């Protein structure tokens, strides 16, 4: 086996630190968040891609905290992972979203990879290497209709991969690009697999054509695959994930939820800062500083309630996913999906509301383009549409009313 050698470049700072505990993971995230926050507005305004920050993440060991203990990782609890991503997102939700698929595709390996694949790729993660994603396709019937195919190359040792993927968050910054593709499994027909392709593989091209109004520096662009050769050792039978109770969906969604809760918290804190330091009191308020205005205080109270609700539900959902991860019963995995869906519904509304209300409490001066305070709303509005709340509400309703478990797939 030589195929694993043609590796991509290691992260800038060399071998990464290895985080050992949940507490260390949260402390590290808090420290990096404090470091990342001050530049967030400028990175968004000038669309400066956060490559240096991602290298800091790599070096810090945060990208390996989900690696199982037997492979040398911290295997942190799901609620810890959620808190890590929430903290990063509070500082800069772009930086938090980029490695979301990194975590997801490491989980695919943990679940469906064989011993050698796990050994190798977890080693990559521990070394600080990053995994992106190449899953969504355009022009298909819905978001889970895939046309990219793995075709046997005839020698029996590998496949050829061809297709075009969009919204490939993380791919631009990745060392490895996991690609979702259909493989014709004899006797079963098309089955979904993940092919782990090195970022520099011939035929793989990442195009930075992302133009979302928010999450601008995630560079969630296009990945083109033209006859890319993939050795069999890098292909994982992802379709098996959904044959029994699973937490693939709830685990992935938990991170998206954490990002939205983080956006809510970041907007709330920036609003408080602005009101305390820059806003003028309204002339009818009868108080000498804006921060004393009883009606403004009231609004802040409502916004804080929204953010705290989202945060409490995120923690609850993290715990539910953690339980489900260890028991993997039908009941526990359904409960986890519903808990995450609930948290996401509340978080999505909270981050959109708070990032819009930021202006209401801050007053006229806050709308200056140069302050770029609308990045919070643009980020919130863009990221919350990733998968729609309206269907989460529906799954929650069915579960509550009829006890129906949600469907098994990657977005609940």
């Amino acid at each position, binding site marked *: 086996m030589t195929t694993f050698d043609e590796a991509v470049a290691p992260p800038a700072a060399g071998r990464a630190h290895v985080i050992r505990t949940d507490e260390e993971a949260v402390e590290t995230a808090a420290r990096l968040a404090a470091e990342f926050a001050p530049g967030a507005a400028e990175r968004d305004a000038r669309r400066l891609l956060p490559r240096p920050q991602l290298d800091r993440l790599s070096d810090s060991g945060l990208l390996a905290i989900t690696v199982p203990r037997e492979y040398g990782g911290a295997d942190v609890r799901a609620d810890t992972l959620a808190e890590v991503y929430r903290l990063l997102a509070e500082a800069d939700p772009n930086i938090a979203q980029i490695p979301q698929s990194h975590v997801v595709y490491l989980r695919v390996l943990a679940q469906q990879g064989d011993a050698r694949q796990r050994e190798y790729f977890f080693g990559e993660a521990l070394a600080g290497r990053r995994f992106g994603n190449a899953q969504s396709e355009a022009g298909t019937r819905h978001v889970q209709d895939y046309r990219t195919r793995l075709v046997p190359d005839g020698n029996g040792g590998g496949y050829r991969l061809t297709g075009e993927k969009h919204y490939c968050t993380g791919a631009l910054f990745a060392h490895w690009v996991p690609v979702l593709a259909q493989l014709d499994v004899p006797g079963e027909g098309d089955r979904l697999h993940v092919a782990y392709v090195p970022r520099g593989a011939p035929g793989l091209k990442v195009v930075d054509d992302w*133009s979302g109004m928010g999450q601008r520096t995630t560079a969630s662009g296009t990945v083109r695959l033209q006859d890319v050769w993939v050795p069999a050792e890098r292909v994982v039978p992802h379709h098996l994930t959904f044959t029994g109770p699973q937490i693939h969906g709830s685990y992935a969604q938990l991170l998206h939820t954490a990002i939205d809760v983080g956006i809510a918290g970041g907007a709330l804190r920036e609003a408080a800062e602005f009101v305390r330091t820059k806003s003028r009191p309204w002339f009818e308020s009868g108080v000498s500083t804006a921060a004393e205005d009883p009606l403004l205080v009231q609004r802040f109270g409502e916004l804080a309630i929204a953010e705290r609700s989202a945060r409490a539900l995120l923690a609850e959902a993290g715990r539910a996913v953690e339980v489900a991860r260890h028991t993997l019963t039908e009941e526990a995995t359904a409960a986890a999906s519903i808990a995450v869906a609930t948290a996401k519904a509340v978080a999505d509304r909270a981050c959109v509301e708070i990032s819009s209300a930021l202006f*209401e409490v801050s*007053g006229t001066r806050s709308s200056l383009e140069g302050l770029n305070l609308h990045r919070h709303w643009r980020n919130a509005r863009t990221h919350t549409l990733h998968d729609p709340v309206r*269907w989460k509400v529906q799954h929650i309703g069915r579960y509550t009313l009829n006890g129906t478990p949600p469907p098994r797939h990657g977005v609940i």
Partner: protein
Amino acid sequence: MTTAEISGPDWSTRETPRTPEEWIARAGEVAAILASDAVERDRAAATPYAEVRLLKDSGLVTLLGPAEHGGGGQNWPTAYRVVREVAKADGSIGQLLGYHYLWNWAARLVGTREQWEHVEAEAARNRWFFGGAVNPRDDDVVIRDEGDTLVFNGRKSFSTGSKVSDVTVLEGVLEGTDKHVFAIVPSGDPGLTFHDDWDNIGQRLTESGSVTISDVRVPWRDAAGYVDKEFQPRVYNTLNVPTIQLVFVNFYLGIARGALETAIAYTRSRTRPWLHGGHERAVDEPYIIDIYGDLSAALWSAEALADQVAEEGLWFHEHPDEVTERLRGEHEVRVAAAKVQATEVALEVAGRIFEATGARSTTSREGLDRFWRNVRTHTLHDPVAYKRREIGVYLLQDKLPEPTWYS
């Protein structure tokens, strides 16, 4: 495109609208022209010369002007509707037109009959576009009394539309007094320097930047409402707040309607159904249907209140000498309610449409965020919580809102 390229029918060959319905239809035509490149113009944020030209050529600027001088002879409720219609396509231009009506009407609000008859005749005949540099909350412009002439000096933080206007309503305080004076000056007066520093997240084409006023000279006889250097107060003078606020209400509602219609068109043509519903088209998804049903009901309701309150306000304009403090105060409370509702619904619609248009609609190219940016920016003008407070204080304590010069 640049703004110079705005094209439309040859308005000069068209008959002037006569009824409110015809004026609203005319505004609709203007809106359709503005809509065609609203996203690009918003992005460019160029000075809206061509847009103002369009407002003039289409006749909209003279809607409220006296018919005998070539004006449309319409009343405020129609003007509000026209503002709303234009704002559907372009919130900035809706605001510019609304402010124009207000500055033009300022002569009647504070001026003597002789003054406002003169201004209205001139404005209608020449299709003047009005701007303003007014902020009576601050004493930022000082007026020197030189006998027959007043000399304005100072700075205003906002001068909406002034740069692209023919005439500007200027406001200042007479040196050593607390007397505010309003006067109309040519916008090309060399004493006016526009700083082009309006760079906000929304309403980007309103040219609301700051202006410096250096030795702008105005004859005493043009000081609105002054007779022998003394202001002649009337209760009608205090109608500024309700009238201005109704202009705001109507361009908020227009922006909301624009957002909703644009989103509906997008959903019909571009939104993909979500994987769970088993629906072939997004327009069949019950929750997408519900979102639009919900938003439309709320918007129609706010529109109805705006219309009803505008009709209530008409009486004041038709009976300027019968306005009492009580009637005026109760009207302001009703206007406050319209403001509350319009603000809430506009923010909600502009923010929620994305839930029905979907992830792909957030691409910058679509520019669907402009509605939210526009309404978010202008609704900061005055905190809506204080409008709810006005209503509550009236209901609980039977206290009327204090008339102020600030809106």
